[in-house]
């Protein structure tokens, strides 16, 4: 996966490059806005991490110019500015996501993957622990064994997997189902839990909020 890292702080850029490398990204580093803009326009990257406070040309301008040049790659803005107006300005200029420094690398990695997934909607098979979800074929399997899922169960699992480690509210589920069938939700969750046994994944109930898909300690 080709990634452009535009960050002027050498210490951070150095560490990030290494961490991204460890996460199997191929990293190109731009230490100022002008270089970042040039590289983004001339080369094909799968994704870019852009600092807003870049020397020569600031990140927001780079972002606008790159979008004007018709580049549609996902760009994650990484910045020290966290006020709401900066966030809004970044997203309006064409950023796909926004992360404030300092950050936890796993979160950055997760967001990068989420952005890359969004770029290839529903075509990719998704795998987590023992579970594989082939969205194109609408087939699920656990440890290679196919699992039968009803349409509602499929939608539910798809949603939980996309939002894994994050809370999926009952309202989100109802929206995904296209109906407000709150009463039977627990039945579906119960069935899904049974089917996920042995996958290394579990559906956790979050009191008063909803559900969350998490990896259990024993895969």
């Amino acid at each position, binding site marked *: 996966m080709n990634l452009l890292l535009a960050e002027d*702080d050498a*210490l*951070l*850029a*150095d*560490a*990030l490059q*290494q*961490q991204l490398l*460890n996460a199997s990204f191929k990293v190109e580093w731009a230490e100022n806005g002008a270089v970042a803009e040039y590289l983004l326009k001339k080369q094909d990257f799968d994704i870019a991490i852009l*600092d807003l*406070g870049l020397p020569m040309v600031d990140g927001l301008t780079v972002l606008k110019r790159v979008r004007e040049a018709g580049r549609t790659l996902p760009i994650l803005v990484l910045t*020290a*500015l*966290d*006020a*709401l107006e900066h966030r809004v300005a970044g997203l309006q200029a064409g950023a796909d996501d926004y992360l*404030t*420094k*300092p*950050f936890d*690398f796993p979160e950055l990695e997760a967001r990068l993957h989420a952005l890359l997934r969004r770029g290839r909607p529903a075509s990719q098979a998704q795998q987590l622990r023992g579970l594989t979800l082939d969205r194109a074929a609408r087939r699920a399997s656990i440890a290679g064994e196919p699992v039968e899922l009803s349409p509602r169960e499929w939608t539910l699992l798809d949603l939980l997997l996309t939002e894994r*480690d*994050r*809370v999926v*509210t009952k309202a989100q589920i109802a929206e995904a189902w296209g109906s407000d069938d709150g009463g039977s939700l627990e039945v579906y969750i119960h069935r899904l839990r049974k089917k996920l046994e042995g996958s290394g994944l579990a559906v*956790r109930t*979050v*009191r*008063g*909020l*909803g559900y*969350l898909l*998490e990896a259990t300690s024993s895969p």
Partner: protein
Amino acid sequence: MSKPAGRSLHRQLLLWLLLPQIVLWGVAAFGAYRVASRHADELVDASLLQAARALARQIRPTASGLFVDLPRSAQDILSVNPADPDERVIYMVSSPPGQLLLGDARMPAPPGAPRLNEPVFFDATVPEPMRVVSLDLQLAAAGAPDSALRVQIARSSAPRELLARRMLLDTALPLSLLIALMSMGVWAGIRKGLKPLAELQQQMEGRRADALDPVQLQAAPPEVRALAGAVNELLGQVQHSLATQRRFISDAAHQLRTPLAGLKSQAELALEATSDPALRQRLERVRESAVRSARLVSQLLTLARAEPEAVAAQGWAAVDCGRLVREVAADGVPRALAAGCDLGVEVVHEGLSVQGVEVLLREALINLIDNAVRYAGTGATITVKLRRAGDDVWIDVEDNGPGLALDLRERAFERFVRGSAHGEGCGLGLAIVREIAERHGGSAELLPAAPKGCIARLTLPAA
């Protein structure tokens, strides 16, 4: 001004405008009385002299002595004034002077040595106060020896005083009325004149220490406008320097974030690269310290955003509490799970909302949840409860952890006081929560939970 706390301007103006008037009034009244009584004296004296001369003309010297012819007309002069029955007149003719010839023997002698033909006027008590004229004459006639003669007429002085008093009253009464009217005018004028000052005072008194908006004075006179202008200029300078300082803090905090992120990332990389437990422990400390510093920076920025002007700039709106609680708690669940805590939500009353800045309220709740996760410990159950309590909304973050000692409960809201020596907290969390709660007209407190644990309560006025 010699007195440390000056007298009210209102009272001073009143005093200095009215006191000279009253003194002048007194002087004028006294002067008028003097003039009036002098005129009265002159009038009385003239009539007395006229009477004395008339009486003297009736005395003719003869060879055998003095002959007094006191006809009816002359007696009339000496008789009681019909207009004033109280007026008493007595007379005495003496020759040689001092030796009674005719009239009342009680008549006192004139003071000093009177000269011929020069009338002497004096006051005497005979036995009542009287005005006396004494006229010494030398009568000469053919065939008779020259004889010295003294004619004295006294008239009770009561009418004279009455006259003077009446004249005084006639002048003083309108003058007093004038003074009273003028005092009222002055009083009203001072009130009206000082009104802009009173307005200025009101505006300054009702002000919070952090309210730096300019003073508003419409149609104020130039003097007060100058004062208000000076105050406004000062307020503007204070505001400007405060803003500069805040911008500096904000910029510095932002600038600190990038190197801290680098430090943290480098430490994490180094952690991955080594398996030496001693080294790993040290690196873990470096990482922790970077995280704590970064957190402190974030909290400082939040605190800056909770400052009044910043709050005013961020836009006040109705905030749906149910949505806020659910969203913030949902975001907190992964962090709680990582710390081994069971975080849940209990919305007791639906449809609650408050007026405020959502970003700040969100920040306050995040701080409360993070606090609970940090201090309740592994295996704790944390519940965010939303409910209505009278006119207030309560957002409680309740845990069943070890709880907090009573003396720490209040201290926990002070800046840089931490509940425990370890962890990534910087001791600003609860201070921020309280600051934000108070900006919204609410409060924040820590209460003990039953049977154990702690309730962090955010009380906000319901919209």
